[in-house]
């Protein structure tokens, strides 16, 4: 049965259905509905909603709850996302599962609190310092917010990485009919140690390069630190150990790539020009593409559902077949840089950008495609 659901509400329902039992947050437009819904719904399932004094504290509490054994998340928007960066890096290095929702608004700084943007996508990849693994998912609709929030929990718990879900103000506040029964729900499952507490080495990885994680208070004594550490969790500067740790952190996500990376496509089999777009921009692009195809034009859409890691192999395969790729996004050119890097000259890459607090329109995309085609002719 369908129900009318707001994007932010769908996010909350997916999180709870996936096992999230702890939320710590701080109100910020346009994500506040997530915290408000959590405040109502978490107590009903025996979970904990906690309001914190700022976003640094929010993610700090989430990491604590996660180490105590509960799938946990927070939600924010641009300014708060900036404040969370240090803890995102900490979660990446100390391998603490957590989910962070960033409902993107116009930035930088206070920017446009009530207007959409896709300006945080590179910050999601490189916002915290140092090399670090990260998973970032970019839903484009209310049902997809439900599916990808759920997937974020599953990936975060399985890979022990911070999983980020980025969507813009429009998708967050959009209300769409959703039949929850038909949507794919991923279960968050954390691997606990099977060895005796005395034999537990908290950062000794299994075959998938992910170490089992003991819950605090279950008899497994371990040391969690933001310093680089050995398999026992002890701080170290030994170059061999430090280097191996950094490579393992990257490699554990790379090995799980096929379960992490996903994208959707329209007309990729015969397209000559392909639009790459994500989030709300992809909705505009989809309209432009279906309209063009109805007119017999060979236009396609490549829509990443995972931004980090990027579906690079898949896009490269598309680039071999088309002559032009148009990247449509609501910023001054962020993912287009990644696309240029991946395509590496196999096709021409053009950008269709908007950074004025309004959403891209199908016309914007159609014009960009036409001008790209015109430049070619």
């Amino acid at each position, binding site marked *: 049965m369908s129900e009318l659901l707001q994007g932010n509400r769908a996010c909350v329902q997916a999180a709870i259905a996936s096992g999230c039992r702890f939320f710590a947050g701080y109100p*910020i437009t346009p994500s*506040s509905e997530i915290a*408000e819904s959590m*405040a109502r719904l978490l107590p009903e399932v025996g979970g904990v909603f906690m309001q914190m*004094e*700022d976003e640094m504290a929010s993610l700090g509490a989430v990491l604590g709850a996660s180490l105590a054994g509960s799938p946990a998340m927070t939600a924010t928007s641009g*300014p708060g996302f900036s404040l969370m960066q240090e803890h995102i890096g900490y979660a990446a290095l100390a391998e603490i599962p957590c989910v962070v929702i960033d409902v993107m608004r116009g930035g930088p700084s*206070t920017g446009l609190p009530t207007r959409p943007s896709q300006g945080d996508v590179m910050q999601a990849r490189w916002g915290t310092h140092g090399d670090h693994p990260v998973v970032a998912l970019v839903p484009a609709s209310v049902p997809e917010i439900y599916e990808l929030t759920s997937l974020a929990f599953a990936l975060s718990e399985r890979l022990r990485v911070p999983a980020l879900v980025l969507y813009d103000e429009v998708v967050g506040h959009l209300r769409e009919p959703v039949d929850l029964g038909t949507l794919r729900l991923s279960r968050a499952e954390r691997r606990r140690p099977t060895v005796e507490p005395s034999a537990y080495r908290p950062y000794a990885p299994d075959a998938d390069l992910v170490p089992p994680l003991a819950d605090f208070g279950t008899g497994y004594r371990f040391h969690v630190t933001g310093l680089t550490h050995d398999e026992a969790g002890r701080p170290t500067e030994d170059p061999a150990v430090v280097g191996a740790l950094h490579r393992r952190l990257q490699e554990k996500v790379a090995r799980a790539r096929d379960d992490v990376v996903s994208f959707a496509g329209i007309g990729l089999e015969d397209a000559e020009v392909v639009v790459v777009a994500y989030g709300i921009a992809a909705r505009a692009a989809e309209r432009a593409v279906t309209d063009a195809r109805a007119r017999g034009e060979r236009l396609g859409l490549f829509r990443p559902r995972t931004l980090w890691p990027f579906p690079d192999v898949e896009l490269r395969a598309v680039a071999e077949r088309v002559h032009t790729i148009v990247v449509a996004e609501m910023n001054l050119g962020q993912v287009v840089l990644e696309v240029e890097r991946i395509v590496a000259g196999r096709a021409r890459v053009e950008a269709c950008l908007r950074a004025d607090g309004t959403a891209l329109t199908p016309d914007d995309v159609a014009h960009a495609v036409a001008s790209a085609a015109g430049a070619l002719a």
Partner: protein
Amino acid sequence: MKMAVETATGTGTLPQIKGVKEVPYDELFVSGHRTCQGCESALVMRHMVKAAGPRTIVLGSTGCMYVANTTYYSTPWVVPWMHTQLGASGSAALGTAAGLKVLMRKGKLKDEKINVIAFCGDGGGADMGIGAISAALTHKEYDLLVLLYDNESYANTDIQLSSQTPWGAVTTFSPTGSERRIMHTRWKKNVPGMLAAGHPESRYIAAGCAAYAVDLMNKIRKALEVGGPTFVHTLDPCPKGWDYHPQYSQELGHLAVEAGIWPLYEVLDGVVNLTGPTRQIAEGRKKRKPVEEYLRRQGRFAHFTKEDVEHFQAEVDKMWEEWLIPGVIPFTIPQKDVTLLNIDKKKPLHATA
């Protein structure tokens, strides 16, 4: 080598206001804002800058008084104004005051008294910004005032709970329901008391309310006059967050003070001075009103049962009857230690005029 410790001092250009007739006529916070009807925080801004005068720079962190006062294409500020990020009012004030001071010392700016006032809401000040305010209050060499306007919720993002939200109040983060009537079970954080008790380098800390306008303006002036880092906390009734008709804002401000929930006081050089009706209550010249009169006027307390009101009353009574300094410093002395600590329980603890 002898090091001179430079301390800030006031200049005596802002005398205390003796009555409404002495209030400056000039408005420095004018029309052009979009605060809600009945907004007391807007009144605090108006009184604040009126009392401070035209040679004032106002800074403010994100919150109602930032957003509603800087709606697109307009501003109510006649004086220079800068937005600071959430949590940064203390540090922004410190940087501004230090910048002015060094430019004046180098002769690049005329040497005169320029007031630096940074405001913050209860979210930006009592929650997120408390660290920066605390740090600013340790820098005795700079003249700055941090004003915390407290409407007891994150009103700008649609009434979420803050550490200043009173016990039991309904917010979007603490909705009442049939399973749990009281979702918010923490007592309001005592910000001015905490700051006064812990910042020996700050000469002046006060609690005020715009319902007592002259008292508030005088506190602003005194804070700017004594110099160094100072702090004023105001309680601002908020029609939207507290759920009452906008015409009752002043009345609710009066009730908060008269019921003893929000004591008016100032701490100058470590000496506590109760002001307004709070002093009259302490001196026994006025009877403290029951908190019920205050609570029943507001939708956010509409779910309160008789027991809830009694609990609230008991907590307020405790502030007045058991605290070391009534309404200010929340320590109680065990009976066995009263003589040990040389405390005369009969002697009023507030300074007499």
